[in-house]
């Protein structure tokens, strides 16, 4: 599409930055690498905002069109199936371009200050660029396979960045875990893609959607006809694709990698593990939403997985003590909201859930990035992740404290901050479709307010820390300017983004959506959130005996929650004890002794056989003569007899 061809630079710039800072990481200084990365991402952000402006300004027939700006064949498999690399502009991809470039720009800028003095900073910034490139490639994908390609690339960037402190064993373990768990989920995604290609005859989103939403098309009939194990192929495909999405978006039970991923540098957690990569699963479901909508089973699965993950993570978050892990569980919980928002949504007029989910994705990216960057500033200052090492920091870091409070209010759903608006729409949509999910969502909103304010109080109030730290904290208080500026910008975004008329722009069918404000529902939600905040204030504003008493009273339940419901242990049991500890040694023994034993046995038999006949080749003439005569005699005798 002419007019938009400049958007190729949104991909080229980060890729070039990756190559330059990566190949030259030992030649250029970390700060220079940071400046290059920040500038390039800043340009991308400007381009994206400009694109968003012109795209949403342009409006044909009352519908925002889907524009394939680029579409180049990359690898062809058969006549119909091939991988193309392209860039598509439609409401959700334009929105994601803005989100990714903006947050990435802030994180780049923040990292210059955060990583000051790190010798491997150049490598860090090259990984960050690689991630940005991959994530941007993912959101503009024109087809499933392109998405899979960039999906894997964001996975590997995440792996590299989590393992950035590679001499630290816990970081190594976390990076491996993140990659392997998401790889397992991607196995489902890949098989889902293969099925989709098989039944849909294409990997292109537009072709798949137009064929599989038309009940008359031959593809639709095949896809929904006889399947495997009584489930139609289309359902299989969507469920498996969702498995990939659930892995990336840390949905239960594939969430176990996300809390550990907090081993990475904090800006990375903000960018990858809060604002952008982890919402890729939501984006994937949204991208294929018209097809999901054809299969109620799959959509219900999305709703239930989302709702349960939201609740599950919120419960765990109430018990954790590591600032970043609390935020990680909160991310998981908020993504759960986005997922069930999609799961309860309809199409077109009934697409409130879809719109709310995308809206929440947008607002969440801003306030969650702010929370992580704020946490980073705190960690930078106290050199610890444990909330017990913090407390009363509001006097030392007033600006950070204020911004953190703002983000907490937003995530808790208190008006007029952004989180209120988006969460409200998701909850309203849930009530219309599935009251149980609504109930879970509402309860989780209360929990969210509780654990977020617990966190806020433990860091910034709670005058007497649990344990007196022996060494006094350094005099330097607020973070440097490069860290402060992005936080203030994000704080501003948190304040205003809720008023953005999202329903006019990002909807399930590209047409503006009428939304009505339900004062009663809002009142209920705000009431629940305020209750959560109030409870947190009672327990955590000042040190008191109550939290410990309640924990003791809950006994086993508390321990179970604190140990994250032992999900990690179950995985360890299956993966480490069973597959690596049992199956693979047995297979190795079998290979060395049975399979190879058979080969060696063949060799030995040959050897024994040849040993036994080699005495006949003694080289002694009289021996040969003896055998010759003996043989001749036998033959003669036989001739006489017969």
């Amino acid at each position, binding site marked *: 599409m002419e007019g938009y061809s400049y958007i190729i630079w949104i991909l080229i710039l980060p890729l070039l930055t990756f190559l330059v800072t990566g190949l030259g990481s*030992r030649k250029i200084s970390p700060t220079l690498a940071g400046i290059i990365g920040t500038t390039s991402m800043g340009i991308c952000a400007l381009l994206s905002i400009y694109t968003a402006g012109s795209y949403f300004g342009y409006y044909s027939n009352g519908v925002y069109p889907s524009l394939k700006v680029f579409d180049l*064949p*990359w*690898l*062809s*498999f*058969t*006549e*119909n*199936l091939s*991988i193309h690399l392209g860039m598509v502009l439609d409401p959700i991809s334009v929105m994601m371009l803005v989100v990714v470039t903006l947050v990435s720009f802030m994180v780049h800028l923040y990292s210059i200050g955060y990583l000051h003095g790190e010798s491997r900073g150049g490598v860090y910034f090259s990984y960050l660029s690689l991630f940005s490139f991959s994530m941007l490639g993912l959101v503009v994908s024109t087809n499933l*396979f392109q998405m*899979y*390609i*960039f999906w*894997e*690339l964001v996975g*590997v960037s995440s*792996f590299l960045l989590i*393992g950035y402190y*590679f*001499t630290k*064993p816990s970081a*190594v*373990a976390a*990076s*491996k875990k993140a*990659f*392997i768990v998401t*790889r*397992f989920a991607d*196995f489902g995604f*890949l*098989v889902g893609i*293969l*099925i989709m*290609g*098989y*039944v849909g*005859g294409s990997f292109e989103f537009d072709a798949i959607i137009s064929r599989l939403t038309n009940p008359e098309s*031959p*593809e639709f009939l*095949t896809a929904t006809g006889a399947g*495997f194990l009584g489930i139609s192929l289309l359902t299989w495909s969507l469920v498996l694709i969702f498995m990939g999405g659930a892995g990336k978006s840390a949905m239960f039970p594939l969430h176990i990698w996300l809390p550990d991923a907090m081993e990475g540098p904090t800006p990375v957690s903000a960018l990858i593990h809060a604002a952008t990569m982890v919402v890729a699963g939501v984006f994937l479901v949204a991208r294929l939403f018209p097809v999901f909508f054809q299969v109620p089973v799959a959509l219900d699965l999305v709703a239930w997985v989302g709702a349960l993950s939201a609740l599950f993570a919120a419960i765990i978050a109430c018990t954790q003590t590591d600032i970043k892990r609390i935020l990680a569980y909160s991310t998981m919980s908020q993504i759960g909201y986005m997922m069930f928002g999609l799961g309860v949504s309809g199409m077109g007029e009934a697409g409130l859930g879809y719109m709310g989910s995308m809206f929440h994705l947008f607002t969440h990216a801003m306030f969650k990035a702010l929370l992580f960057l704020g946490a980073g500033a705190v960690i930078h200052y106290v050199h610890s992740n444990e909330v017990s090492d913090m407390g009363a920091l509001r006097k030392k870091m007033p600006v950070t404290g204020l911004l953190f409070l703002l983000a907490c209010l937003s995530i808790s759903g208190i008006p007029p901050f952004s989180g209120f608006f988006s969460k409200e729409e998701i909850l309203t949509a849930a009530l219309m479709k599935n009251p149980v999910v609504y109930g879970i969502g509402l309860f989780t909103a209360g929990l969210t307010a509780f654990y977020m304010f617990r966190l806020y109080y433990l860091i910034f109030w709670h005058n007497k820390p649990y344990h007196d730290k022996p060494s006094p904290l350094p005099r330097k208080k607020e973070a440097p300017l490069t860290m402060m500026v992005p936080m203030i910008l994000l704080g501003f975004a948190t304040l205003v983004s809720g008023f953005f008329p999202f329903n006019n722009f990002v909807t399930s069918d590209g047409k503006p959506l009428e939304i009505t404000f339900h004062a009663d529902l809002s009142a209920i939600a705000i009431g629940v959130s305020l209750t959560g905040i109030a409870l947190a204030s009672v327990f955590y504003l000042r040190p008191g005996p109550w939290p410990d008493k309640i924990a003791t009273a809950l006994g086993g339940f508390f321990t179970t929650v604190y140990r994250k419901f032992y999900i990690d242990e179950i995985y360890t049991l299956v*993966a480490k004890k069973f*597959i*690596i500890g049992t*199956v*693979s*040694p047995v*297979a*190795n023994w079998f*290979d060395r002794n049975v*399979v*190879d034993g*058979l*080969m*060696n046995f063949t*060799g030995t038999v040959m050897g024994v056989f040849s040993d036994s006949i080699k005495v006949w080749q003694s080289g002694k003439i009289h021996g040969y003569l003896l055998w010759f005569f003996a043989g001749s005699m036998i033959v003669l005798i036989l001739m006489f007899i017969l």
Partner: protein
Amino acid sequence: MNLTLLVLVPVITLAGILLVKNKGGARTVALIGSVVQLGFSLLLLFMYGTERKSGNSTDFLFETKQVWFEQWNIHYHTGVDGISVAMILLTSFVVLAGVLVSWNVEKLSREFFFLLVFLGTGAYGFFISLDLFTMFFFFELAVIPKYLLIAIWGSGRKEYSAMKLALMLMGGSSLVLAGIFGLYYYTGVYGNGSTFNLIEIAEAGIPLEIQSFLFPLMFIGFAVLSAMFPFHTWAPDGHSSAPTAASMFLAGISMKLGGYGCLRLAANLFPEAAAEYSFYIILLSITGIVYGAVVTLFQKDIKLMNAYSSVSHCGFVLLGIGMMTKTAATGAVLQMISHGVMTALFFAVIGMVYERTHTRIGSQMGGLLKVMPFIGTLFFIAGLTSLGLPGFSGFVAEMTVFVGSFQVPGLFYKAATVLACASIVVTAVYILRAAGVTLMGPLKEEHATLTDAAWNEKAAGAVLVFCIVVMGSAPWWLSDLIQASIPGSFEPLIILPH
């Protein structure tokens, strides 16, 4: 282009190595020879492309035919199609990297380089041959040097390993030879006189019952070389004893002779029998893929790990062939190329690490990325290629096999594809475990003074990484080159049973 040049250059190189007296001369000659050969291979690719563009659509280009032994109708008959061009390119890249990696071999270095180039000569001859007899001749040329390379320059139980490898491969060869003679005889019965000519045999119309008898000989014979389960056990022993360059050649070139033979000789010449046996081929290759991956998980020795992972990865080659579709077979050839360069890089890196740390046991290393960032990065690239990361060659090959296989109607084929897909998860586990334990984590004190790659190692790594990245990021030309030459007996896919 005269294809004989591709054999002539290595032969002249061999003569040159014999003529020079010292070590420095031998390696220089070998390097020059392999650079020139790489130049010719690239020229061949270019000329092949131009010729095809100009509309030449015969199966094989640049054919030459010379009577070698008239009485038995044996010819020196050469010609190339897209598949052989790709394999020749692979060989010349791997040979160059192998020569570079071996730059500082101390023991009998003249003889070492001689054998390396000799092995390459056999491979080039094999890939350009269209006469089964000459093809077999070159095939055998490539077997002997492996024995010597392992038995003389190897480590550990080298005599045992060398002998085992030679015997198993020779066993395979004998099956192939029996198959070739069978073909020779039956073309006399059913075709226009006994012949070793590949093109004529393909047109001879040998009946199914004869095919069913000859096909297994040919296929198993070559599949032994390609480490098909259960004939793969030479690979772990061979690799664990072989010197670095020999491992690179063994996995990067030799195993590919097997795959190429399975495709060009077995599946192409006996299409009906191949279809009949496809169930068993797929069954064995899937076993190899999954079982190989699971056994790899157990390996503590990183070289053994790569040897077993080769068993798993080469399973994709046989799976692609067994599916008998154009796309899957294209994937099989892509996988041969991808695995060839990837595993050569991996063995090269493992050699570099071993030379410095004097251990191959992962847990005895750690944090090496800190002292050898270049080698560490190569290790990561090889590993990520092995686990099929997009942007590197492995992804392209595996996805082509998967898509091609999944399109075959029938639950069995789909189940096999899904199992093959599952193996990439296991691959990720063992690769990351190996990388985590060797490159990451705390650095061992005794390794704090180790040095990063020398110039020759950097050059070898760069050559192979170049192949991996080019193939992984711009795969279309290679895929098209290969796909156009997949024999017609491989059905183009029937999409959708509408």
